């Protein structure tokens, strides 16, 4: 693997090097010593969101190492300034102010939940700091202003795409829905329900559960009575795993469609045989013949001890995109980086190719669906009808 080009002084140039170093010393006294490009990084390292935060952190660090190993950007190294925000809004405001005021950061990747991204966005916007929200799904984040970017499909768009997939691709019409009660779960489900009519879907019954629930006996019994064609559930892998196994254990055999955050190998581990045949929306093709992707998989697994999930992949891509933006702007000036990012075209992410951003800096990208077969994620189609799940414009 072409990992590193180590910069070593050529012995033959020793003489001139002495000269150069003398010169450089002179320069160094006038300029701040070899300044790395700092990228602020907010992640939930403690608290209930730490599961995702840990993955995001590992992926973020890997991205920076890969960038630096390839020579950095504009001849400089990238340095990650990481703060724990516990995925809480007040902590996000503290750390945002800290990044701006004490660390002098101009470019930020928010690898945290909506509560954080939403609170931090206006702070960064006001300070003219570019922020890429890796996986915060709340619409407010990009509405804060033109310095904000989002690298994940909005909840309602994911929901609309799900309706398209269930109604058209799978041809299933009678659906029971199970919503996780948080902003992500609710927004995604709302998008589904809104779009469901368009594809002839009738929602038989709607259920919801809290993030802390792991036992779904009542919902399972009710879904059984509903006798639907399929079940659509929003949630995380740690709620989805128990939910799917309990649905299957009760003898419900209809297809189950899970939302994006089901996307983790832990889901398969938890649900075991019950995971077979479960569809996962807005997932990504893990077997794609792409060297970066395969390198990412092996390296992440080595560091984390578990396979990377969607959150890790997105965060990695977010840091890479920021570096790419700096390169294209040929500057670290936030206004220039912002313009460069806004002009992004066909950027290779781990999940596939990012078409670009719309006027609100929401990402435009097809949505991939996975299905679990023999305990592995297998591609089950790509939704390319971008107009069916177009994000809102400015």
């Amino acid at each position, binding site marked *: 693997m072409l990992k590193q080009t180590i910069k070593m002084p050529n012995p033959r140039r020793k003489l001139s090097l002495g000269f150069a170093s003398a010169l450089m010393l002179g320069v160094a006294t006038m300029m701040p010593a070899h300044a790395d490009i700092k990228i602020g990084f907010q992640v939930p390292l*403690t608290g*209930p969101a*730490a*599961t995702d*935060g*840990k993955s995001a952190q590992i992926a973020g660090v890997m991205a920076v190492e890969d960038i630096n190993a390839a020579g950095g950007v504009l001849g400089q190294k990238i340095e990650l300034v990481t703060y724990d925000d516990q995925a809480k809004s007040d902590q996000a405001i503290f750390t945002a102010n800290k990044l701006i005021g004490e660390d002098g950061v101009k470019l930020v990747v928010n690898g945290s939940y909506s509560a954080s991204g939403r609170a931090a966005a206006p702070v960064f916007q006001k300070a003219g700091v570019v922020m890429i929200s890796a996986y915060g799904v709340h619409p407010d984040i990009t509405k804060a202003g033109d310095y904000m970017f989002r690298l994940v499909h909005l909840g309602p768009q994911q929901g609309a795409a799900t309706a398209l997939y269930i109604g058209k691709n799978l041809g299933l019409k*009678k659906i029971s829905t199970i919503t996780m*009660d948080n902003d992500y779960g609710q927004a995604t489900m709302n998008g589904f329900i809104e779009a469901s009519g368009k594809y002839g879907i009738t929602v*038989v019954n*709607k*259920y*919801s*559960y*809290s993030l*802390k*629930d*792991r*036992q779904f*006996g*009542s*919902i*399972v*019994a*009710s879904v*059984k*009575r*509903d*006798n*639907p064609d399929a079940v659509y559930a929003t949630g995380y892998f*740690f709620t989805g*795993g*128990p939910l799917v*196994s*309990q649905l*299957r*254990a*009760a*003898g419900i055999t209809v297809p189950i469609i899970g939302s994006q955050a089901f996307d983790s190998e*832990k889901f398969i*581990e*938890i*649900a*075991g*045989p*019950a995971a077979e045949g479960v569809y996962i929306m807005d997932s990504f093709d893990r077997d794609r013949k792409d060297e970066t992707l395969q390198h990412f998989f092996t390296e992440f697994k080595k560091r984390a*001890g*578990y396979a990377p999930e969607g959150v890790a992949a997105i965060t990695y891509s977010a840091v890479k995109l920021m570096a790419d933006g700096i390169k294209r702007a040929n500057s670290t000036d936030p206004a220039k980086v912002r313009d460069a990012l806004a002009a992004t075209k066909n950027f290779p992410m781990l999940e596939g190719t990012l078409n670009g951003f719309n006027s609100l800096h929401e990402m435009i990208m097809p949505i991939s669906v996975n299905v679990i077969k023999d305990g592995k994620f297998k591609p089950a189609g790509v939704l390319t009808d971008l107009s069916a799940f177009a994000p809102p414009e400015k």
Partner: protein
Amino acid sequence: MGGGNGASPTAEDDAVYYFDLAVTGISFGCMYAMMSVGLTLVYGLLRILHVAHAAVFTLGAYVTVLVANATGSILLGFLAAMIVTPLFGMAIYRVMYEPLLKYRPDVPMIASIGLLIFMQDAFRIVFGEQGITFHRNAFAFTTFNVFGVTVSAVQIATIIAAAVVFTALHLFTTRTRIGIGWRATVSKPQIAASFGIDPIKVRYLNFAVGSVLAAIAGGLVAEMNNLVDPGIGFVVSYKALAIIVLGGLGSVRGTLIASLVLGLVEAYGTIFIGAWLDRDAIAFLALIVLLMIRPQGFTGARTA
């Protein structure tokens, strides 16, 4: 589609459905009972709201999974948890509560919450954010069909475990010398002491028994979810509080009744009022309604 169209179920479908919900509720209730009796015991004796009981429960769940995975036997996992957790429970008493007994009850309670936060994060650091699962857990996916109602093996195990455990506890406190002494100490400490019962030993016994019950509940929850994550005990920490208050603080019988009632209320409530309130809020709504009617809980055995 069969005769029972999803939109208009037959009367028979309805009966099965409500029975299904009842089974769900009862198994929740049994689980809650095993989680909360430990709290009741501690409260009855020391008047401390032992929030860190949730950490004991979590430890029980982790030990069950770890040992089961290491040995290949789920039974051994449960046994190991039932040995480790009482030691932990007694240590909590010795190190944390004993020196704080002379202060207002909210002082040990805050310490207890501190310990829970500490332990939760310790579990996260040691065993990872992602949580752990059983390598082999055929149990969770085995189901039985009883008159059209699907009952899972874990549900049956929970109900049986609760029945066995509470029968044993009942026999222990009514038929054995230690047990009778224990009960006496809880209700009349001075008199019991004058009969030569060591109140300190009773306290340790209290923590040990409560912790064993929490460990069993922890193991069963791990079975049912096939997942133990650091936050698994959090729900226990506050729901068990609601239960023991519903049960009339300090009354084991009241706790058992309250657990079953709450299990059932949640099982039906999740479906019928879930659109207005989430499950946790349902538990507390029941609690507040009951307390307004009966300020001393279901049994009202002791006045506050």
